[in-house]
């Protein structure tokens, strides 16, 4: 397949959560989300209950995909940062390690400069973790997986919607 599968483990999930918590505090942000480029939410921190995180993840990925398309049109590899300024809240979106998207939502209590500064540090730490995860995913190939034993019955049970 064209893209390696993203697999999240307990240990890395904890490390990522800690980095996001710290980013919320250090940047005075309202909330921080980490999203896969395919639109799946990986982790979140801060006042996330005020946001529809599933929709946010999908729209962010769409936004990054469209911006990436624009970048290619003008001969750029990608635009690694997107910033949307609202009346009260702002969104800072950046690409981490070419694979995941870091979204920071902040208001007047913070500033673009502070967010950019803190995002840069957090991004380096996150990129390292995702590199580790990618290596783990390659090693995990062929080893025990809970999905190797899926039965037809398991699948049929899902459809009581």
């Amino acid at each position, binding site marked *: 397949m064209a893209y390696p599968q993203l697999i999240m483990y307990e240990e890395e999930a904890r490390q990522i959560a800690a980095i996001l918590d710290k980013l919320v505090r250090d940047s005075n942000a309202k909330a921080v989300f980490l999203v896969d480029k395919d639109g799946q939410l990986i982790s979140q921190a801060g006042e996330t209950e005020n946001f529809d995180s599933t929709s946010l993840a999908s729209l962010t990925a*769409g936004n990054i995909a469209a911006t990436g398309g624009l970048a290619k049109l003008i001969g750029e590899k990608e635009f690694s940062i997107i910033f949307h300024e609202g009346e009260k809240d702002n969104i800072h979106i950046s690409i981490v390690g070419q694979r995941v998207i870091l979204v920071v939502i902040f208001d007047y209590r913070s500033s673009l400069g502070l967010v950019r500064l803190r995002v840069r540090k957090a991004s380096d730490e996150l990129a390292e973790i995702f590199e580790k995860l990618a290596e783990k995913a390659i090693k995990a190939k062929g080893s025990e997986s809970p999905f190797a034993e899926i039965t037809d019955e398991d699948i049929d049970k*899902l459809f009581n919607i």
Partner: protein
Amino acid sequence: MSFINYSAREINCKIVYYGCGLCGKTTNLQYIYEKTNPESKGKMISLATETERTLFFDFLPLSLGEIKGFKTRFHLYTVPGQIFYDASRKLILKGVDGIVFVVDSQAERMDANIESFENMKENLREHGYDIEQIPYVIQYNKRDLPSAVPVEEIRKLLNPQGVPDFEAIAPKGIGVFETLKAIIKLVLIELKKGAK
């Protein structure tokens, strides 16, 4: 690509509805949205023009219970069908786990169906996917319209591989869930294969 989260005990998969303009991709999602329990679905997002033509995509998140102790989440997307939105269509296919190709059964739309199918293969190739390897099903929609071409004929044109296919009348819901179940099943079987 599917995202397996051992920490949250979740699997996330992406399913894309593809097909020519006005074939009923959005209608499929709308019907699924209407008929799914509130606890199983998230908000449906439609990025559409003022005349309700899909501009970028529709998005519907579904949660379908557990498998081997993992919650299953399926993200359903549609692509914009109109020819000139090809750049957007290509973007949405990225990371896809399974495809529903929706066919407009009307005789006058056969060329558009074939063009869309070829376009899908081309866009998949550009992402490094091969149509032979990706799970997909075909839905023959608009079976109730007077100029609907017999299924056997469409099959010859668009489904010589014999992938699972379904007749549908999407606004009435006929064939909609059958199609969805079939693609989810294929995606999970693929996940199982990948796990071995």
